[in-house]
């Protein structure tokens, strides 16, 4: 099976002069549809940076990235926006729900941008239902539990039916039960045929993964 996400030779440096640190130094990654890959590493090792670069939220200094056959590296901002809209879903540690919008409206948000999935509205309804969020759908984020907020965030990531989901410490801000629930959801998401990259410190997360990679010295390696 051809990989849905493929990256090679990724280089990304932070800081300047003596303070410069090369967080990614030739990192390579390949994830197939339906595969959940967990990426571990020390704090500050560049795990989040890797996800940002893979998802087109930040640009690498060198390297090649392909998502569902489309090049991410060197793409224009307009092209990157289209890729993020239709091919990539993000889940963040701190949920990033907009406080002005209800939980459900946050899910629908991704379907409101121009060029979104034509069935985004229907999919938002289904996802809210499927993730057991119907009863709290109209509440503001400030009135939701951490687990509920992260489930809404996962639903938002899936509204446009992306081929790749990138999750940055999705359980990092949750208690054990909620974290387990979220990991279960992510596993289901991968099982539906999506490539899923999960950056985590959580040992429980590795149990749900098909593969576990470690980021050390700017490179990814299996252990």
């Amino acid at each position: 099976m051809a990989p849905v996400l493929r990256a090679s030779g990724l280089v990304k440096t932070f800081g300047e002069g003596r303070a410069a640190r090369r967080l990614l130094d030739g990192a390579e990654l390949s994830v197939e549809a339906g595969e959940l890959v967990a990426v571990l590493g020390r704090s500050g090792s560049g795990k989040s940076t890797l996800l940002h670069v893979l998802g087109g939220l930040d640009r690498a200094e060198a390297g090649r990235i392909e998502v569902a056959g489309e090049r991410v590296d060197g793409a224009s901002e307009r092209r990157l926006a289209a890729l993020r809209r239709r091919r990539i879903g993000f889940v963040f540690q701190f949920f990033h729900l907009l406080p002005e919008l209800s939980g459900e409206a946050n899910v629908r948000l991704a379907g409101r941008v121009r060029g979104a999935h034509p069935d985004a509205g229907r999919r938002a309804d289904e996802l809210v239902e499927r993730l057991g969020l119907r009863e709290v759908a109209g509440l503001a984020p400030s009135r939701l539990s951490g687990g509920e907020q992260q489930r809404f965030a996962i639903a938002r990531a899936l509204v446009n039916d992306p081929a790749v989901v990138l999750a940055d410490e999705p359980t990092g801000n949750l208690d054990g039960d909620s974290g387990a629930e979220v990991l279960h959801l992510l596993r289901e998401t991968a099982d539906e045929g999506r490539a899923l990259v999960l950056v985590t410190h959580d040992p429980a997360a590795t149990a749900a993964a098909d593969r576990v990679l470690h980021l050390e010295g700017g490179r990814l390696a299996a252990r």
Partner: protein
Amino acid sequence: MRRWLAAAGIVAAALVAGAAVTVGFALHTGFDRAADAADLPDVIARFAPQRRADVDERVRGLPNLESASYRYELNRVPLTFGRRHTHNGRLEILLGGRRGYEVVEGRDLSGRRGEVVVEQGVARSWGLHPGDTLEVGRAGGLRVVGVVVSPDNVAFPLAKTAKVYVGDLDDERSERIPVNQTLLWVNDRSRTDITLAAARTVAFGLGDLSFITRNGVRVTIDQAAGVVIALLVAFALVALVAAGTMLAAGAHAEVQRRLPGLGVRRALGFTPAGVVAGHARSALVLAAPAAAVGLGLGALAVGGPAEELLLALNQRPAGAALLGPLALAWLVVCGVVVAAASFPAWRAARRPIAPLLRGGELANRRPPRRASDDGLLTMGARFAVAARARWAGSVATIGVCAGVVLLMLGLASLLVQLRDDPAVLGKRYQLTVDARPEQLDSLRAIEGVQAATQRYTVQAADAFRLGEPVRLVAYEGDHVRFDAPPLAAGRRLRAPGEAEVGQGLADALGLRPGSPLATLDPRGRELRLKVVGVVRALDDSGRIAWVSAPTLLGADPGGFGQSVLRLEPGADRPAVIDRLRALGLAPVTVGGATTRNTAFLGILASVLRAVALAVGLVCLYALLQGLAMTARERRGALALLRACGASRADVAAVLTGAAAAVALPAALAAVVLERLVLGPAVTRLAASYAALPLRPGAAQIAAVTVGLLVLAALAAVAVAVRLAREPVVHGLREELP
């Protein structure tokens, strides 16, 4: 970028202040500068021609007199230069002594024959320069040797007469020429009234006597410019308040951005005062050059129109004298910026240090009462409204600015209307001709002429206060058919001995319906009238009275008569004019205020439009500033949208919603403000001599609303383009849990 934006704001605010200060100061002080430069006399007395020796004997005995000079003034002298011609020239033969004018080009009269100096208004409108030859009545071709300014009246063609000066004859020749004008300079200007009273006493027996004082000239001219000055002073205050609000908002955002750094300083032991001093210094470094640039640009932008205005009023541009007020304005703008920057820093510096280090909100913001499911535009509007105090400040600032724009546009179109449409002032006739009364029937017979009558005018003065001139106007028959200025109080005149007076005259003499009005015509004959109505009129600054024809002709059978023609609706005016010319007449088309005022009104309209444009720029800046702050505060949310695939256009849509949430209420506030406050206030200012219908029209409201929305869209696109340049992840890092 932020510093550039803040500097741009200061430049915009200072530009408006500079424009207002320049025009306001120039107009307010123009007369005094011109009068000083021209050595304008304190009193000008006109009378029937007398032997100079006789007049000199009476003048020499006047108290408080410093010096006097004499002239012989000839009116209705034909002047011709090339294709330019007027029958209304005024030739002043100088008979020695001080001039009372300033030579602004060429040189003064030398005493040689064949020389003439011309007033600047004539030179400018006819393109005359020293060396040219001007045909002056029976004197023939005279060589122009200089151009002069005398601010005893507004300039030609705003004034009816074109003034030229000849003479400075030797004693022998000048003794043979009678005098009909004396210029008096007094030792103590505060005691001019004593000199004037004595002059009235010794002038017993002189015919056609009239006096005008330097102060009287100033009052008359100032009244014409008074509305503009009052507007500009009010506008300068509005601009400063708007600038202060904008700068305070900008400073608040800047302090918000620098909270962690501020916390670090406090943690390191800096006192709140030390932190504030640092902010004040940094604000001053930014404000000093930006304010100077803005004030300079503002002064340059309106300098041209203001100078034109002054020249039309025969006044002197401010020149270097403007530097003082501009320097004061610079201090005020810098002070406002420093205060605006220091206050939020002071508030922040006094907070506990830990929240500062976390970069928490400077103002505690309440969570929304209810969550919702909105589109991108509505979401943007919610972003803008979330910071309620700033939203209200922005709406107020832009609302006031847009209200001023609406007022300026209203005034400008009113001035154009005044210039072009006589009906605005109640004039219901369209043509005038110098015809004899017996020709009226043939005029009425012309196809397209609905009515024609004879109108008489006499230049008179109030019998008790001779400094107050009044023009008496009378029509054969009911004057309302031809001239119906809006009635402010009382009723229309119905019988001989009654008068409708202009508001300007009523204000000057304290007249109201029922008051007596006594006037003296140029030959010294008194006419007693009863005021029955007060009307709003622009002609002669409202110093005008309508009386019945028998009353006027009874007092002065030689009153200047003219035929006025009212045309049928849709009449072919050129054809009527052709028929009149075929009768050997020279018809004159009636304009608005008066035909000779068209250039002046055009200049005023262009000044107002220039100011409106400057205020429009302030609106754009305020929108940009507010939007940049919203984008800055909601950087994380906008980054999240982009992470979800939002394009630049989607981000622009959110920002457009935010800008529209400010622009639309601001447009509404502007209309309300103009209708309820600014319009009535300006109408009251002008009510001394005219009624100004200043309600904004639908087109003006639409123009301002659409203009604000266009500015909002422009600001949204500008901020969206800037946002799109930074990687999404930069914004996400700032989204706090």
